[in-house]
């Protein structure tokens, strides 16, 4: 391979072939939806979704169908059984909660024991038995929650498949079914309405693309100077961890979600915003309120606001549960558990501080205005970076 191509491959490799392929699928499907009126109709979009899911999951397609099909059949069975109960709402809610627990346990344990790598051979291809990717599980948890709580009615198979296979949400962001359902009426909107949004969307697309490219560039830079076998000192590695690494991740994924947010409207679908300048926030609460918002809002709504059967929620316990689950959602291993615990403990410390703010009045008086203004954002940034950087060191110490 010529040198420039080798160099390009080196830059792209960190983000993976899946992401590039998925981006291509999204762009092509958006162009198709814009170009052909028939494809903008629900049946046309359904067809595009099915094609996208085949391209995206490929050999894991069987696992995807099995996982989503099981969840849908479970919801259908609960819905049917609830009709014959005295208190159908309570029955539906309890069984849906049980379904969520089973799904989450299968997801966490399945990844820990690598169930998702189990496969069988058919037609010369090895087919994956389970599809346990983080965004699919989050989508399925939200629909179980929404149907179970009575927030939405059980969708038809057609609508369910359409929603679960939406190309713009396969790798995130999360569009809850209730949000998707509200938009179904806008699918056949006129081209005039589409055009009125186009300038804004093109600008957003360009910004997203720029962010992704910058993210890829920084990821490549980081890999080439601090990758395996690098001779950097600990201090140099620390500097990279606190400067390049967080920005490369944020730019890459923030840009990617921005691209999805700008492509989805070509289908008549609006996605929720995912990132809102998370770095530079004054505290961990503000950081998480602006980081991967479509996903973190689920953890907040379902776990942080959960009283777990008690009269009053214990915010500290709930915080630790939330962040432990955030960690496990990323990966069932020591690194992500520690990542979640560190964020949980940091968030608890912030909650305690905000409840006892008056005790720190003396300390705050000792700081002049500009010092006070920068202390929060700098401390938050350093803590967030530490949560990415420190877990491997802590794990090494523990072992």
């Amino acid at each position, binding site marked *: 391979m010529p040198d420039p191509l080798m160099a390009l491959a080196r830059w792209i490799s960190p983000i993976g072939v899946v992401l590039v392929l998925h981006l291509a699928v999204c762009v092509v499907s958006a162009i198709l939806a814009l170009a052909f009126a028939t494809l903008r109709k629900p049946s046309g979009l359904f067809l595009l979704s099915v094609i996208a899911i085949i391209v995206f999951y490929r050999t894991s397609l069987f696992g995807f169908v099995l996982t989503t099909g099981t969840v849908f059949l479970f919801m259908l069975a609960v819905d049917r059984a609830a009709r014959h109960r005295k208190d159908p709402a309570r029955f539906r*809610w309890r069984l849906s909660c049980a379904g969520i627990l089973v799904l989450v346990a299968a997801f966490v344990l399945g990844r820990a024991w690598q169930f998702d790598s189990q496969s069988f051979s058919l037609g010369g291809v090895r087919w994956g038995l389970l599809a346990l990717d983080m965004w699919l599980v989050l989508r399925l948890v939200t629909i179980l*929650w929404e149907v*179970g*709580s009575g*927030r939405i009615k059980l969708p038809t198979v057609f609508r369910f498949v359409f929603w679960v296979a939406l190309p713009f949400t396969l790798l995130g962001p999360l569009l809850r079914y209730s949000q998707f359902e509200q938009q179904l009426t806008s699918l056949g909107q006129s081209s005039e309405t589409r055009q009125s949004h186009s300038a804004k969307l093109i600008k957003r697309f360009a910004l997203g693309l720029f962010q992704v490219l910058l993210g890829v560039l920084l990821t490549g830079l980081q890999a080439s100077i601090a990758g395996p076998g690098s001779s950097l000192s600990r201090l140099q590695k620390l500097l990279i961890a606190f400067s390049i690494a967080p920005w490369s991740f944020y730019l890459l994924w923030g840009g990617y979600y921005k691209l999805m947010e700008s492509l989805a409207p070509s289908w008549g679908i609006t996605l929720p915003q995912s990132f809102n300048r998370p770095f530079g926030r004054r505290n961990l*609460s*503000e950081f998480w*309120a602006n980081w991967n918002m479509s996903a973190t*809002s689920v953890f*907040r*709504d*379902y776990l*942080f*606001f*959960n*009283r777990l059967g008690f009269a*009053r*929620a214990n*915010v500290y316990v709930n915080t630790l549960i939330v962040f432990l689950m955030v960690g496990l959602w990323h990966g069932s291993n020591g690194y992500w558990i520690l990542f979640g615990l560190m964020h949980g403990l940091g968030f608890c410390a912030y*909650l305690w501080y*905000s*409840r006892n703010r008056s005790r720190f009045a003396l300390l705050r008086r000792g700081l002049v205005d500009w010092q006070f203004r920068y202390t929060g954002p700098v401390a938050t940034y350093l803590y967030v970076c530490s949560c990415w950087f420190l877990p491997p060191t802590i794990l090494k110490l523990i072992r």
Partner: protein
Amino acid sequence: MTETTNDIQQRVEKTLARMFDVPPGEVSGLGMGLHPRWDSMAHMELVMQIEKEFGLRFPTYEIGELVNPAAITSAVERHVQK
């Protein structure tokens, strides 16, 4: 005596005004994440205050949806009518 939507709205707005220390006239513009003090923790406190005010208990799945005065009023109304 059944409370009207207007009565419920007024009591919700009073609770919000007391909680976030804003004049009652400005309550309608409040929203979770829109007011600097209405964060996740304040939200839990607010839910408790509303529950105490109306003597009811919101189920878990409703708490995340009580994001502005209108949503709170309509949820309270639903529970009061039950």
